[in-house]
């Protein structure tokens, strides 16, 4: 079983690579394009995958940040992410994994409850971001955030590490999550 490990490769010079995992290719593609529009001192690479494990015979750079995209309208997308998570090594979850939930704006189309993804993110001790990727402005704002996170995770921002960022993003506002 091929598992993604965060430090099994040497980093590329000034390169930061993000892996977006999700079933809805069109949304991932648009998010990728939005990210690449951002001004960034690092060289960005975006890998898109429907699910994990990734094909093994490919030469790919070290992955600095994985974002699992769940569409709240589709149970299929959640199930896909849940199965893909098994192919990620535990050490990745030290700040190099994030969850992104889209579709929360259209409440009537949601077949997955917010709490479900919140619980998933909590289980994996990773931040959860909400963004309606179909809306261009929200997508652009999210792309900006992801680029900043990616730079930190790739170690391109001096004196901030992925683990630092993770502890900053952990919210102590929701003690009820412990009860879930």
């Amino acid at each position, binding site marked *: 079983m091929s598992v993604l490990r965060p430090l099994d490769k040497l980093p590329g010079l000034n390169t930061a690579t993000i892996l977006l995992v999700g079933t809805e*290719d069109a949304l991932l*593609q648009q998010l990728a*394009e939005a990210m690449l529009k951002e001004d960034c001192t690092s060289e*960005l690479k975006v890998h898109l*995958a429907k699910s994990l494990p*990734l094909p093994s015979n490919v030469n790919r750079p070290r992955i600095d940040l994985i974002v699992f995209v769940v569409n709240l309208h589709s149970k*299929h997308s959640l199930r896909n992410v849940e199965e893909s998570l098994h192919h990620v090594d535990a050490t990745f979850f030290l700040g190099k994994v994030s969850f992104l939930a889209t579709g929360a704006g259209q409440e009537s189309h949601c077949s997955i409850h917010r709490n479900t993804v919140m619980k998933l993110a909590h289980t994996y001790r990773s931040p959860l971001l909400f963004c309606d990727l179909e809306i261009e402005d929200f997508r652009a704002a999210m792309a900006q955030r992801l680029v900043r996170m990616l730079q930190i995770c790739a170690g391109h921002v001096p004196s901030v590490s992925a683990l630092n960022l993770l502890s900053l993003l952990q919210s102590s506002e929701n003690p009820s999550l412990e009860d879930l």
Partner: protein
Amino acid sequence: MDETVSEFFRRTILKIPLTEMMTILKTWNFLSENQLQTVNFRQRKESLVQDLVLLCEENRASLNDAALLDIIYTQFHRHQKVWDVFQMSKGPGEDTDLFDMEQFKSSFKKILKRALKNVTVSFRDAEENAVWIRIAWGTQYRKPNQYKPAYVVYYSQTPYAFTSSSQLKSNLPLLGQTFETHNSTTPLQERSLGLDINMDSRIIHENKTEKERVQRVTQEIFGDYPQPRLEFAQYKLETKFKSDLNGGILAEREEPLRCLVKFSSPHLLEALKSLAPAGIADAPLSPLLTCIPNKGMNYFKIRDK
């Protein structure tokens, strides 16, 4: 202008509801802007219609113009008609010719006129390579009855034709023959299923092979051409409750459990076709969904074997 043509105009225009009058006349594009401006659209309908007929006479409108107006009216009110669908099948060994709309129209008209001298045939092109054909039938001794026309809507890139008849069905076999003689075929064209060529080399698709597999499977099932336009599909399920546990409230229930699922969409089959490429469903789709065009059914009852 002939009395009968004038009367036909009068009756056709009278059918049009006042709310649609301007839109339909503009679509018809036979009366000019200036002419339409001289008419008072707020008067009583009978007087309005009279004025419009006079304008048509001024423009020396012919029977064909009236027939065209009739087609447009029917296109606006297509839902009020009952349509039958016919699927044409190619005979063995027939060659694939290129389809030419003008040639189709002229040979269609020729064939009908050869069979029946008294017939009025009119055409109007519509969206998606479709053509609306209006046929007014006469007999050997009688002029065509313009008030009971038949309509055929033929989508040239598909083997389907829709017909609606306000008269006896006796003329349908003739229509069928007309299509056979014309030899309708589908041209071969390259059509991509919306696979965006990724221009930015910094974006790498990891599951390229999977994506290609999905595109291939979708193409195998749905083909390259636009799907027939369908708006509903309904599935009724009747099944008895099955349980591993002995006993239980539902286990002894004699009555089967019933479930109804209805799909509706402005273009259901295109929506189903785009499910797998969009990542919303796995490919291949359930045969219950993909068998709709093959079986020619969209109402299904699923029972226990």
